[in-house]
């Protein structure tokens, strides 16, 4: 069985193995599509067209990708520290609470140049704080972070429902949502921003939060691979004993990794609330936290890989909606199926194609 872990050539390991994993996932997807009576190739064509066929659909693809970049980075940062943060969902949600509170308190007094950065900071801070509790429980009380972050997702959800229904609901509103954000707290849409420099695109939900997401990618890349803290964090993730030997404080590093992870998850709130809804609403983060796991796994924890994976999932999300619209037998939950299969094949069954690739490349070694 030790053959299972025999090393493969580097490019196979980094390039081919993930592709093989994805290919397996999509193979199963096409079987499912065929089972429900749709030609998989036809479905694929509709999906691609729906995701990339017009500047509007590209806009939506990028808008979804923005969320996935944030949650993908969040999962990846924790993963590099050897921590499995499945609480991205709750952290994004509570990040939204921070964002909403900051805006509702101050949007009448502050100009956009102050209000928006402050709201972004509040999202990050609340997301980080929500992640800090399970981190503390893991570092000081030895509680399993997987279990605690799951529980915190549910607690976040209950807390938000309570606050939205009882406290933050706009006076006179029938649905649980806050009053609308003032103009100073709205992140400009990409359409408006591009128009400003003379480029015309169709309107979509895409907004300048995408730039924040890309900036976060660069930031995470610098942090993980170009700062001593990131170095210590990765050491802990790979080899806690070596981290102890090197003088890294494991408890503090656990806190750091989780807080950063939570803050990144808070980015979803920026995209959704400041960029699109312009008010605090229920369930705006639903599903994005879990998809972040798929994005991080597929992107191999690297920001560049995460951007690519986020684009794929963004395209799936958008294309899936179009596909569901065009083909009545398929619902947009097909995207959820694909996400599940990607997590399965590039996560839990990541080594499945390894023996085949080994057989292919054995003669090279």
């Amino acid at each position, binding site marked *: 069985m030790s053959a299972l872990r025999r090393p493969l050539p580097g490019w196979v390991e980094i390039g081919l193995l993930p592709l093989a994993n994805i290919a397996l996932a999509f193979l199963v997807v096409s079987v499912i599509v065929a089972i429900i009576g749709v030609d998989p190739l036809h479905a694929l064509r509709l999906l691609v067209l729906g995701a990339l066929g017009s500047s509007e659909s590209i806009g939506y693809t990028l808008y979804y990708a923005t969320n996935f970049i944030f949650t993908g980075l969040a999962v990846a940062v924790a993963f590099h520290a050897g921590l499995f943060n499945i609480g991205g969902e709750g952290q994004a949600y509570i990040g939204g609470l921070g964002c909403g509170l900051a805006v509702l308190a101050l949007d009448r007094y502050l100009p956009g140049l102050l209000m928006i950065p402050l709201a972004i900071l509040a999202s990050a801070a609340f997301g980080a704080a929500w992640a800090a509790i399970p981190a503390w429980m893991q570092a000081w009380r030895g509680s399993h972070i997987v279990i605690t972050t799951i529980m915190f997702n549910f607690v976040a959800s209950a807390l938000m429902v309570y606050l939205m229904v009882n406290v933050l609901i706009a006076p006179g509103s029938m649905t649980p949502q806050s009053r609308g954000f003032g103009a100073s707290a709205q992140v400009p849409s990409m359409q408006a921003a591009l128009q400003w420099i003379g480029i015309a695109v169709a309107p979509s939900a895409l907004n300048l939060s995408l730039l924040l997401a890309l900036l976060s990618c660069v930031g995470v890349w610098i942090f993980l691979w170009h700062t001593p803290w990131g170095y210590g964090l990765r050491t802990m993730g790979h080899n806690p004993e070596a981290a102890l030997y090197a003088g890294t404080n494991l408890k503090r590093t656990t806190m750091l990794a989780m807080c950063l992870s939570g803050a990144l998850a808070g980015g979803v709130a920026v995209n959704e609330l400041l960029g699109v809804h312009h008010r605090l609403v229920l369930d705006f983060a639903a599903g994005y936290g879990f998809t972040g796991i798929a994005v991080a796994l597929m992107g191999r924890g690297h920001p560049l890989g995460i951007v690519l994976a986020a684009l794929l999932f963004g395209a799936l999300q958008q294309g899936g909606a179009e596909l569901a619209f065009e083909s009545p037998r398929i619902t947009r939950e097909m995207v959820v199926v*694909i996400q599940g299969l990607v997590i399965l094949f590039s996560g839990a069954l990541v*080594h499945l194609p390894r023996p085949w690739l080994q057989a292919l490349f054995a003669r090279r070694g």
Partner: protein
Amino acid sequence: MEEALSLVTATLAATLRVATPLVLCAMGGLFSEKSGILDVGLEGKMLMAAFFAAATASLTGSAWMGVGAAILAAEVLALLHGFACITHRGNQVVSGIAINILAMGLTVVLGAAWFGRGGQTPPLTGTERLNPIFFPVAGDNILVYGALLAVPFTWWLIARTRFGLRLRAVGEVPLAVDAAGISVSWLRYRAVLLCGLFAGLAGAYLSIAQNAGFSRDMTAGQGFIALAAIIFGRWRPVPAFGACLAFGLLDAIAIRLQGVRLPGVGEVPVQLIQAMPYLLTLFLLAGFIGRTVAPKAAGVPYEKEP
């Protein structure tokens, strides 16, 4: 007085109704976790089972066919979990999450394709459902009694049989089991399959006994509450059963307390009561209510020394 009595019995019946899927699920999860295989995917197994139970019952007109299909569906996911975690030594949490997400998507995709009702199955009536046996108001269908029997059965199997002894051992020190000449993998596969069986029954209960049909995401976190009950019961059947009842009672109370002002306290937020199972488990995990002792080898793939 009479009113109070009927309130009590009604609440108790409601508790039992709500607790039944939790109990079944928790007993299933116990087998898996006792053997050292973490099961975050209880929720997904239950959801998939619920869907196939309702779909099959609706298509065949037989509730029992529905139960069979539910078990089969849950077992397929259980085997998938086993294949990933035991055979391929994959990450057990990742596998569990994948199963949850897969079930979440697949139930709606298949439901929409087969029934065209936005993911719901057609409403079930008569023999398509498991109906109450003695007390129509209480909803005491066969699976409620099944859940009540599942607890002593689980206790007996774990505490009193050879299989149980080996199961407990493999979750603690798989090496000792291997050294005694017992197959670690086969033992864990059996545990995972038992887990699938119970999760399947729990799912069937949701869609063809408690409710009259499947609706999307109808498990609504109950798989995770079952997981919390296992932790709360410190991986022992009877205390886990107690935790399930307590969580069920909380839920029953939450429904009754909606909008009611309690003297001295004011209105208790329903959401607080709903979040109670999670909050209590978190307090427990943080070590504020004594220590928890998870099976030592849980989550760790077993690899023979070279």
